[in-house]
């Protein structure tokens, strides 16, 4: 897509995410050609949609489509992909004695789909790959969790007939794309938190003046922006030069940045931000849940540290 196409695409996605969520947003995305855009320019379409989705606190089935693209599964009919269990970025499927076990989560798309795509990790001598299984064979139940608006589904299966059909080793690519998408969505939600806190600081009066004049308040908002920009820098780099290491770092920094931001913004919003009717908690909940998908700030950072301590060297990333 050239610059003009991108601008046009962004405008239509913005309108869609401002008006609709869930099924209605999926319908709107179908109409504006999101799937074609994804096939044509994955990084650009992912960044546009997921950023706006995070900012507007809406949901769609787009993550399943991103994963299908990454896995190399054709996008025909409603696609649902089983995601890793919370906190993990490992393939949710494992083969034992020729049978398939599944432990993961899913988006609401999984409940509507007849078949689900499952990535299978390498176990013993058996190769990794991708298979599809009938959703009727899966044990699915919807959980409210910390962010009930997402409609997260727990997925389990202990004994499914799952011959791995291929294509071969696409899981790492799918994980990186998902991490980019989720980083954008987390940062979108975090920008919303900052916007709410900034607006509140400028309009709330105490001690006869706007609280935005107090250095304690200003510094919290500045800290929030620094946390966002740190994650943004790595996310932009990961998008320009895709690599699993950069995508994981971006996801990790986004998740940790969101927590930092939430701590400061919540404090600035104070009592008003603690009420259920104030929108702050929705963005906060969203960022906490998304942090758990495809590796959290905690697990990805620990995995990176394990690698560094094992190899005793620092990979050369981002040359000039």
């Amino acid at each position, binding site marked *: 897509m050239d610059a003009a196409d991108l601008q046009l695409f962004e405008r239509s996605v913005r309108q869609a995410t401002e008006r609709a969520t869930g099924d209605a947003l999926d319908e709107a995305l179908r109409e504006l050609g999101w799937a074609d855009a994804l096939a044509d320019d994955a990084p650009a379409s992912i960044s546009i949609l997921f950023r706006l989705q995070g900012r507007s606190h809406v949901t769609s089935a787009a993550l399943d489509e991103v994963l299908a693209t990454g896995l190399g599964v054709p996008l025909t009919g409603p696609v649902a992909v089983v995601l890793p269990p919370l906190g993990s970025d490992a393939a949710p499927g494992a083969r034992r004695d020729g049978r398939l076990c599944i432990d993961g989560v899913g988006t609401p798309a999984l409940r509507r789909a007849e078949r689900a795509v499952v990535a299978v990790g390498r176990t013993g001598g058996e190769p990794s790959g991708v298979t599809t299984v009938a959703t009727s064979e899966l044990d699915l139940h919807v959980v409210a969790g910390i962010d009930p608006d997402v409609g997260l589904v727990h997925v389990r299966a202990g004994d499914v007939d799952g011959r791995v059909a291929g294509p071969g080793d696409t899981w790492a690519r799918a994980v990186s794309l998902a991490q980019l998408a989720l980083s954008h969505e987390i940062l979108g939600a975090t920008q919303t938190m900052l916007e709410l806190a900034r607006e509140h600081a400028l309009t709330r009066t105490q001690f006869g003046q706007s609280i935005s004049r107090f*250095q304690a308040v200003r*510094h919290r908002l500045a800290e929030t922006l*620094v946390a966002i920009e740190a994650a943004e*820098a790595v996310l932009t780099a990961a998008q320009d030069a895709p690599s699993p290491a950069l995508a994981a770092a971006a996801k990790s920094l986004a998740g940790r940045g969101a927590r930092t931001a939430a701590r400061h913004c919540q404090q600035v919003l104070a009592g008003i931000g603690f009420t259920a009717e104030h929108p702050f908690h929705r963005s906060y909940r969203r960022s906490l849940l998304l942090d758990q998908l495809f590796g959290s700030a905690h697990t990805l*950072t620990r995995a990176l540290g394990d690698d560094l301590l094992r190899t005793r060297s620092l990979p050369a990333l*981002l040359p000039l």
Partner: protein
Amino acid sequence: MDLASFRAALDDWLAQHARELAPPYEGSGTLDERVAHLARVKRLGYDAGWMRWGWPEAVGGLGGSPILRAYLGEALMARDIVEPDAYSMTEVLAPTMITYAPAPLAAAMVPPLLRGDELWCQGFSEPGAGSNLASLACRAIPADDGWRVTGQKVWTSYAQYAARCVLLTRTGTPASAHRGLTALFVDMDSPGITIRPLGTMHGTDEFAEVFYDDVPVPFDRTLGEVDRGWAVAMDLLPYERSTSLWHRCAYLQRRLERVLATVPDGALTPLEVGEVAQLLLALRARSRTTQYRMADGETLGAETSIDKVLIATAEQAVMDLAATGLAPDVMGGDDATSERWRAEFLYSRAATIYGGTAEIQRNIIARRVLDLGDDR
């Protein structure tokens, strides 16, 4: 010269001259040894052309993008050839001369700085003007034959080694604040200058108090316009947060590599190591964008305070990690390697103080990036 050719040729040259370029001392060496080594490295680099790339031909450079300077510094840090402090001051002071000095002065003065014949210093802070720089009091009074400067500066890094100083003086009334400042380019061997190095917490007496007693400075040593010194200072600060910050980031990566290479098994948790590596990566990604913005001719502004907050945080994080993982050496070792870690750890405590405190950076971000309005 494009970056790819520059990188390949420079890497080659550095490999061929590794022996000559290596510091002749263990650990940090003394400050005298370090300053002498830096001069030697700059001289070798200048004669081979490397130190001249990325600088305009008008000041003895060979032209090309400032990205070349960023890479040169990175390559030197990555090989433990020099440390960033005094090396990177060129990146702050030479651009100031190029922008604000009369052209003949810049043409005469910048080459000896690049060649390592001279070290320069920056006279901004005063006992009564730290964070509130605009309140500085060191006076410059016009006489018949030039300025006469009287006052005191403090925390002037490398003053005792410096041949010249970019000095910020008050030329307006005491109440004129940032509207009454003028920047001067001062020879440090002028009569009336007394330099008294200050002992520091980390044991390297790299900064000094500098007393100016009726020091004559010719009018043609004025940088920029009279009473417009604030603009010179404000233009200089973003340079501190671009090329020289990239150099420092490369140095911090090198030090983290040393931690990883030498830390005893089990002394650090994966989580703390991973977090520091990510902080450094974020700094590198952010600074990399800033390098290209500067190379594209963009004016750097308040947003570079974010780069500055990130590097101060990352520097302390790297050194905290070293002090944890290598604690027996850092706290209880007397060999050169332990002493170097100890000095670096202690020096890193200043990262949130020098070049504008962490609080001043957050004030700038709040007012000028987040647009929160005035705080008074």
